[in-house]
């Protein structure tokens, strides 16, 4: 029972990442009608916002020690982060909290990136064939990830959660069975963050006029256009929001998975599968399919289940479970779990 709960929890954080990316994809797709192959790159850019902020915060001042020497007899270098020098202990705390702080930086940065992308490139493709939309965003994804590779190298860069959030919660203790269900604190934070973001996006769409227009646009783009509503500006903002959602998701994910330049594409492929399973154009579908597939993936990688499957000759299911489910769903429910009729058919 505890093991099952643990797997559910484990699946939730991966699922949350899928859900957040898929949410943005669906939003862009539903309103702009563009399938954004560069959306994974936005997730990756967000993660590298965190890396950059961390680098900036930990810029160091190097002083050669007058008194102490190293084992080689050279003067010992004393490195103090500038932040510490300027702000003292507060500085250290700031460094410790670099990931959450990065969120603040990532929001305007990602918004800007999103707006520039949409205004500078994507908007010229609204009326072009879907194949060309895919191609141009795909090219853009390559460009973005190669730029990151050029600046940050090819290796993953470890980021740490703030110290106070690095521990784990012992859920088992709550049920009088300490140690049975230990869950890292940061993942809890990540989960909470995702839920908040998802809820705010939904609330935004549900309760604001802007959101109402966007939803109307997703249901019937032409009519909304005919009403004389300035769709263009709204498209830009929607794209910006989707970029922020993906980007902040990327920031928060860094302590869970050290970011590297190709993480975007890795996540994108799975997020696409999530979107297809959830039903293209359905926000609720994207989110629920994201969590669902995350959990299923984590179950398939559970060692008990792996052993069990190996006994009947099935191995490696955890590697491909998502794809298999997608295939089955597409065969029995071509529109996905919550897909609407007539979307992209």
């Amino acid at each position, binding site marked *: 029972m505890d093991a099952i709960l643990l797997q559910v929890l484990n699946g939730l954080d991966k699922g949350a990442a899928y859900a957040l990316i898929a949410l943005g994809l669906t939003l862009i797709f539903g309103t702009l009608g563009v399938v954004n192959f560069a959306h994974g790159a936005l997730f990756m850019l967000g993660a590298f916002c965190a890396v950059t902020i961390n680098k900036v915060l930990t810029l160091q001042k190097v002083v050669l020690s007058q008194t102490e020497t190293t084992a080689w007899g050279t003067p010992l270098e004393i490195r103090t982060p500038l932040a510490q020098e300027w702000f003292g202990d507060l500085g250290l705390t700031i460094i410790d909290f670099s990931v959450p702080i990065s969120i603040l930086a990532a929001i305007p940065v990602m918004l800007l990136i999103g707006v520039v992308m949409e205004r500078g490139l994507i908007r010229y493709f609204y009326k072009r064939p879907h194949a060309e939309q895919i191609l141009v965003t795909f090219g853009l994804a*390559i460009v973005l990830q190669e730029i990151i590779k050029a600046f940050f190298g090819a290796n993953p860069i470890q980021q740490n959660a703030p110290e106070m959030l690095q521990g784990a919660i012992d859920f088992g203790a709550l049920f009088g069975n300490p140690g049975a269900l230990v869950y890292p604190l940061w993942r809890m934070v990540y989960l909470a963050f995702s839920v908040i973001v998802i809820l705010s996006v939904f609330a935004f769409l549900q309760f604001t006029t802007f959101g109402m227009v966007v939803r109307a646009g997703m249901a019937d783009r032409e009519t909304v256009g005919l009403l004389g509503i300035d769709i263009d500006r709204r498209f830009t903002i929607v794209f910006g929001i989707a970029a922020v959602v993906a980007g902040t998701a990327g920031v928060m994910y860094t302590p869970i998975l050290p970011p590297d330049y190709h993480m975007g594409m890795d996540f994108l492929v799975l997020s696409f599968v999530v979107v297809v399973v959830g039903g293209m154009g359905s926000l609720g579908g994207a989110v629920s399919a994201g969590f669902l597939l995350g959990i299923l993936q984590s179950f398939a990688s559970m060692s008990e289940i792996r052993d069990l499957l190996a006994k009947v000759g099935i191995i490696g299911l955890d590697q491909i479970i998502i794809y298999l489910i997608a295939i089955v769903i597409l065969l029995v429910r071509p529109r996905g779990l919550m897909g609407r009729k007539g979307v992209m058919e």
Partner: protein
Amino acid sequence: MLSLFTKSSEKSDLLLLALFAVVVFAMPIWLAPFGAAYPDLMQRFAIYGIFATGFNILFGLTGYLSFGHAAFLGVGSYTAVWTFKLLGMNPIPAIIAAIIVAGLFALLIGFISLRRSGIYFSILTLAFAQMCYNLAYSVLTPITNGETGLRVLRDDLRLFDAPTVGDGGPLLSHIGGIEMTGMPGFYFAAVLLVIMVGLAMRIFRSPFGMMLKAVKTNQTRLNYTGVNTRPYTLAAFVISGMYAGLAGALLCVIDPLAGAERMQWTASGEVVLMTILGGVGTIIGPILGAALIKYFENIFSAFNDQTLNDIFSFLPDQLQEGFVSVTSLFVGEGWNLSLGILFVIIVVFLPGGVTEGLNRIGRFGLRRLGIGHKSKNEDETSPAPGE
């Protein structure tokens, strides 16, 4: 595109193919001034030419954009190496086996993916390819040898030629004692390229090809015309998968090593780019695109800071440093960045690819010269999408 049916005839096609063969076989001569006349590179021109030609049969004719064709390339490679291991180093059984196995894979993947069209199809093929890649890396390690890659070993079975291959030297594919590296390797691939292009030309001009074009323009209408489009698209998918399998096998003929990275999405994206760059839906375009990309990849990735410093050494020191650091972003390791930018530029400004570009220039030139605005010849090479 019209011209393929109405103006050109079978005879003129044969003539074109003969011309193409001459151009391909003479590559060692006319590529020399470009510094591209060495076998290793020319082999890649031919092999990726085959890959892109096959891809174009699917994408160019039916409009179905597959993002997972690298999977078939990889399957072809693995099959070829296994044939080497089991039967011996003769390339012929290897390519036949690779074509068959890749075809079967394409049948399976196509059968499922083609239930949807448009974006769904692209996503499904991408997912399948990623799945194959994951499997090749992990569970299927006994077959694929995982990260290390699959190669032929001295103590492999090699039913038919184990005794004849001497001990020293690397294990190479060979026909009748001629090893398939260097120039023989190139000519082997070149002959296959010409054959495969000939087949593609036939397909383009056949009733089957015409149906595929109709699928691209209006699939629904075609259904109401009494055509069951599913088997047509599936056949196109399988054929193009077989081309990819052949290309994958050839990669192993010239270098008997198969690795999973050949199946990654970047490889799938590359063949899309080759086709787009050259010109979708044209016979020569994809081959041109493949050659251009492999050529520039070769040149660009050879650059390093040293060579760049040499190039910019005429500049004052400060400027030199700046230039070197900027350009080094785009060459060497950064070649993929240039590739991505090229990709975007082509899609934005020249969706018809190089062939369309040349065509525009040609048309412009003709108009300037006061020769009518539509000559027959020019029309022959003009098929761009959306025309």
